[in-house]
C-alpha cells in the first residue's frame, strides 16, 4: 500500500499506468488526487457511459440533452424548462440531515448554472423498514434536511416519492430534482471560452469539507465509512439563496461567458470541465482561493467540496461589475485564474506550478469499462414462483386497510407538510395527487412534474421495471392533463464490477430507453449512483425517473380526488392476473416474487392519449392511475383525497385478490359527470382502449362488489385513520 498511493484513492494499477502514459511521467501527489476524483465513477461515468448511449436523447423540443449541467426543453413563447435529478445517497447514509440538505444545494446550483431561475424541487427517497430505529433516524433526518435547505431557499418542494424496503437498510437513496425556468436567450453553458478571460470563484470560502467525496460516492459503504467524516459537508442555504440571486443578476446583465457549479471534486472538476467543453485550457492559482481554514495545501484546495460556490468566466472587462454584484449580495468574488489556449490544466501556488495536466486527460481520456454482464441466479426461482398456489385472503376489508397502512402506500403528508410547497405562489396542484402542477405567471400554460421508480419491479425484471418507471411517470402527468415532454433520471445500483449488477443496469436502461422512445419522452440528463451496497449486498436496482410535462391550458388541470356525488367512475384498461412484485404480495404474503406486471407500450400510449384528450375536453372531474396496491387502493385514494365515497361493481373471472390488488399497467380511473360519461367511453372506444363504467361517486364509504357479491365495504373515516395515521404512528 505504502508505495501505491493511487490504490487508496480508488484507482487501479492499470489506471495508474494509463495516467503515467498520458502524462509521459509519474504524476505528483496533487495530480494523482485530481485524476482519482475525475476518474471516479461519480465524475467519469466510466462504467456506465457505453450503456447510457442506449437512451434516446433527441426531439424537436429538446434544446439541451445530456452533457451539460442540466437538460433543457422548449415550452413555447421563448421559454424553456431546465431540469435535472441527482443522488446524495452516501453522504445521507452517514449524516442524513446535512447529506440530504447539501444534495438539494447541489442540484439547485446545477439549474442556475444554466442561467435559469430555480422554481421547484422534488425528492425521491428509499429507506429500510421503519421498524428499525436507524431507518427512522435516517428518514426523519433526510426529510428534515431537505425541508431546511429547500424552505430556506424559498423553493417549493412540490412532489416526490418514498418507498421502504429491507434492501435499502443501511443504504438509503436520496435523489433530489430541481426545475428551473428560463427565456431561451438567457441560456448559459459551462464554458471557459475566450483565451485570456479571467476565471472567478464566487460564493463561500473554501474549507476542508468533503475531500474525496466523489471517490467516497464510488465505493461501497463499510465499517470504516462512519469515520470517514471529512466526506460530509455542512450546507448553508442562506448563502445559497444569496448566490442564486447574485448569479441570476450576472446573467440578467449579460456579464458572463460561462458558469459552472462546484460539486463533486470541487475546483478540479469545475475548472477542467469548463475548459474541456470550450476546448481551451485553464490556469488556477490556489493561493488566491479564499480559505475558511488555515494551512490548507494545494491538494486540499483543489479537492475540497465546500458547498455554495460557483466558478464563472466573465466577459472581458466585466470582472469589476461581477464583484460589485456579488458584494451587493454580501458574497465574495475572486479572480483565481484565467483561460488559456494550450489545453492544459495548470495549477499554481503563487508563482510555483504545482500541477499541470492536459484537460482532456482528466475529462475524456478516462478509461471506459464494458463490464461483464451475467443474468443473476436469483431471477429464475423468483420469476417462476407459483403465485396461483397462494390462498385467497378471508377478509378483503382487512387487506385493503393493511395496504392503506403500508408505509409504501400510506399518505406521505408526514413528509410534505414539512416542505414549503406553496412558496412562489405557483403551485396549483401540490403534493398528494399524481403529479404536481405549477402555473407560469403571465401565461396560460402550466408545468406538470413527477418522479417515479419501483425498485421491486426492477429487481424481478429489470427491463420491464425500467420501462414501467418511465410509463408510470408519463401516466402520472397524463392524469393531470399534461403532455409528457422529457425525462431526467437517477440510476441507483449496486457495484457495477459485479456482473449481475452490470446485467441489471444494462437491462433497466434498455427498458427505460424503449419506453422513452415509445412515449416520445427523451432523456435530457441524469445521474448514475453505483456502489449502493452494504455488507456486500446490493440495493434493488432503482432507476428514478423525473419527468416534466406541459399543460397548454393550466385551467384544464385534473386531480385525483373525487368531486361530486353521482359522478360515473370509469376504468380505462384491463385488469389481469398480475400480482407478481405487488404491494399486496409483500404485505399479505410477505413475498417479493413473481414477474412484475407486463407493460404494452402501444397500449400505454393510447390509454394516456385518451386520458389527456378527455381532460382537455373538460369531460373529466378526477383521474388517477392504478399503481401500487392496484384498483382498490387507487379507488380508496381518490375517495380519501376528495373526501367522498364510491360504490363500484366489478365483473370478470379472476379471483377477487386479483381484481382488487393486481398491479396491471396502463390502467386509469376517471370520474365524469353522468352526462359526459358517454363521451369518455366513446373516446376510449375510438382509440381501441378498453373502458368500463364500474360505479358511482357518493356517500362516505367505499363499497366494492364483484357481480353483486360484496368484497369491500369500509367507511372513509376508518380508511383515513390507516392511510393518514401510518407514517406519524411509525415515527412516534
Amino acid at each position, binding site marked *: 500500500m505504502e508505495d501505491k498511493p493511487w490504490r487508496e484513492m480508488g484507482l487501479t494499477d492499470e489506471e495508474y499506468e494509463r495516467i503515467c502514459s498520458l502524462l509521459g511521467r509519474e504524476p505528483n501527489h496533487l495530480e494523482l488526487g485530481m485524476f482519482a476524483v475525475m476518474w471516479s465513477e461519480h465524475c467519469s461515468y466510466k462504467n456506465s457511459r457505453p450503456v447510457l448511449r442506449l437512451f434516446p436523447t433527441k426531439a424537436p423540443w429538446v434544446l439541451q440533452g445530456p452533457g451539460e449541467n442540466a437538460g433543457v426543453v422548449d415550452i413555447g413563447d421563448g421559454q424553456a424548462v431546465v431540469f435535472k435529478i441527482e443522488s446524495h445517497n452516501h453522504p445521507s447514509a452517514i449524516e442524513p440531515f446535512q447529506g440530504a440538505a447539501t444534495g438539494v444545494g447541489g442540484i439547485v446550483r446545477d439549474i442556475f448554472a444554466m442561467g435559469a431561475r430555480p422554481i421547484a424541487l422534488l425528492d425521491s427517497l428509499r429507506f429500510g423498514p421503519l421498524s428499525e430505529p436507524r431507518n427512522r433516524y435516517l428518514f426523519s433526518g433526510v426529510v428534515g434536511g431537505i425541508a431546511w435547505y429547500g424552505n430556506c431557499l424559498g423553493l417549493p418542494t412540490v412532489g416526490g416519492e418514498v418507498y421502504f424496503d429491507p434492501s435499502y437498510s443501511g443504504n438509503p437513496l436520496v435523489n433530489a430534482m430541481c426545475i428551473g425556468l428560463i427565456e431561451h436567450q438567457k441560456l448559459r453553458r459551462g464554458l471557459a471560452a475566450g483565451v485570456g478571460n479571467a476565471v472567478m470563484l464566487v460564493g463561500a470560502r473554501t474549507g476542508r469539507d468533503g475531500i474525496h467525496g466523489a471517490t467516497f460516492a464510488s465505493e461501497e459503504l463499510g465499517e470504516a465509512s462512519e469515520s470517514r467524516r471529512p466526506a*460530509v459537508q*455542512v450546507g*448553508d442555504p442562506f448563502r445559497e439563496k444569496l448566490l442564486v440571486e447574485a448569479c441570476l443578476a450576472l446573467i440578467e446583465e449579460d456579464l458572463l461567458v460561462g458558469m459552472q457549479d462546484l460539486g463533486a471534486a470541487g475546483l478540479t472538476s469545475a475548472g477542467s470541465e469548463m475548459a474541456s467543453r470550450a476546448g481551451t485550457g485553464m490556469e488556477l492559482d490556489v493561493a488566491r482561493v479564499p480559505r475558511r481554514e488555515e494551512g490548507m495545501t494545494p491538494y486540499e484546495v483543489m479537492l475540497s467540496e465546500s458547498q455554495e460556490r460557483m466558478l464563472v468566466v466573465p466577459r472581458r472587462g466585466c470582472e469589476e461589475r461581477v464583484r460589485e454584484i456579488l458584494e451587493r449580495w454580501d458574497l465574495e468574488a475572486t479572480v483565481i485564474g484565467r483561460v488559456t489556449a494550450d489545453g492544459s490544466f495548470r495549477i499554481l501556488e503563487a508563482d510555483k506550478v504545482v500541477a499541470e495536466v492536459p484537460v482532456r486527460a482528466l475529462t475524456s481520456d478516462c478509461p471506459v469499462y464494458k463490464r461483464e454482464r451475467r443474468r443473476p441466479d436469483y431471477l429464475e426461482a423468483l420469476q417462476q414462483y407459483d403465485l396461483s398456489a397462494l390462498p385467497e385472503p378471508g377478509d378483503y376489508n382487512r387487506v385493503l386497510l393493511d395496504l392503506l397502512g403500508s408505509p409504501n402506500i400510506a399518505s406521505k403528508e408526514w413528509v410534505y407538510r414539512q416542505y414549503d410547497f406553496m412558496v412562489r405562489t405557483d403551485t396549483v396542484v401540490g403534493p398528494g395527487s399524481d403529479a404536481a402542477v405549477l402555473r407560469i405567471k403571465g401565461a396560460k400554460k402550466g408545468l406538470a412534474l413527477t418522479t417515479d421508480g419501483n425498485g421491486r419491479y426492477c429487481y424481478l425484471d429489470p427491463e420491464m421495471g425500467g420501462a414501467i418507471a418511465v410509463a408510470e411517470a408519463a401516466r402520472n402527468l397524463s392524469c393531470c392533463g399534461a403532455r409528457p415532454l422529457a425525462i431526467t433520471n437517477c440510476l441507483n445500483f449496486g457495484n457495477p464490477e459485479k456482473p449481475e449488477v452490470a446485467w441489471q443496469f444494462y437491462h433497466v436502461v434498455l427498458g427505460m430507453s424503449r419506453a422513452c422512445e415509445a412515449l416520445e419522452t427523451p432523456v435530457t440528463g441524469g445521474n448514475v449512483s453505483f456502489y449502493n451496497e452494504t455488507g456486500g449486498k446490493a440495493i434493488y436496482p432503482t432507476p428514478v425517473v423525473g419527468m416534466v410535462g406541459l399543460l397548454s391550458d393550466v385551467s384544464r388541470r385534473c386531480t385525483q380526488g373525487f368531486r361530486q356525488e353521482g359522478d360515473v367512475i370509469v376504468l380505462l384498461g384491463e385488469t389481469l392476473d398480475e400480482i407478481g412484485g405487488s404491494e399486496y404480495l409483500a404485505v399479505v404474503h410477505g413475498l417479493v416474487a413473481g414477474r412484475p406486471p407486463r407493460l404494452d407500450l402501444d397500449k400505454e400510449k393510447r390509454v394516456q392519449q385518451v386520458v389527456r384528450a378527455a381532460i382537455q375536453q373538460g369531460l373529466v372531474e378526477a383521474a388517477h392511475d392504478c399503481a401500487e396496491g392496484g384498483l382498490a387502493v387507487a379507488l380508496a385514494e381518490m375517495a380519501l383525497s376528495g373526501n367522498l365515497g364510491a360504490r363500484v361493481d366489478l365483473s370478470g373471472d379472476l379471483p377477487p385478490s386479483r381484481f382488487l390488488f393486481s398491479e396491471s399497467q396502463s390502467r386509469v380511473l376517471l370520474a365524469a359527470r353522468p352526462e359526459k360519461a358517454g363521451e369518455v367511453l366513446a373516446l376510449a372506444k375510438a382509440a381501441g382502449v378498453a373502458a368500463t363504467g364500474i360505479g358511482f361517486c357518493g356517500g362516505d364509504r367505499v363499497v366494492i362488489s364483484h357481480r353483486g357479491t360484496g368484497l369491500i365495504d369500509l367507511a372513509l373515516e376508518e380508511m383515513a385513520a390507516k392511510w393518514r395515521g401510518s407514517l406519524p404512528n411509525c415515527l412516534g
Partner: protein
Amino acid sequence: MFTARIYITLKSGVLDPQGEAVKKGLAALGYECVKEVRVGKYLELRLDAPDTASAQAQVEEMCRRLLANPVIEDFRVEV
C-alpha cells in the same frame, strides 16, 4: 438529584453558517473586535443517579446515543 450541563459544539473544521452570520451581525452593530463565533447547544438536565460519577457516565452515554451527532459534533459534560 443532579444537574448536568452539556455543551455541544461543531467539530473544528466543520462549517458553522450560524456562527458566520452572527459574526457578520455583530460587525454590523460595530463589534468588529469579534474575530470568530461558533454556535453550539447548551443543555441542562436534572436527573436521579446514585452518585456523581454514574451521573456523569450516564449523561455521556446519552450524548453519544441521542443528544450529540458524533459525525459533526463534539460534546462536554459537567455534573
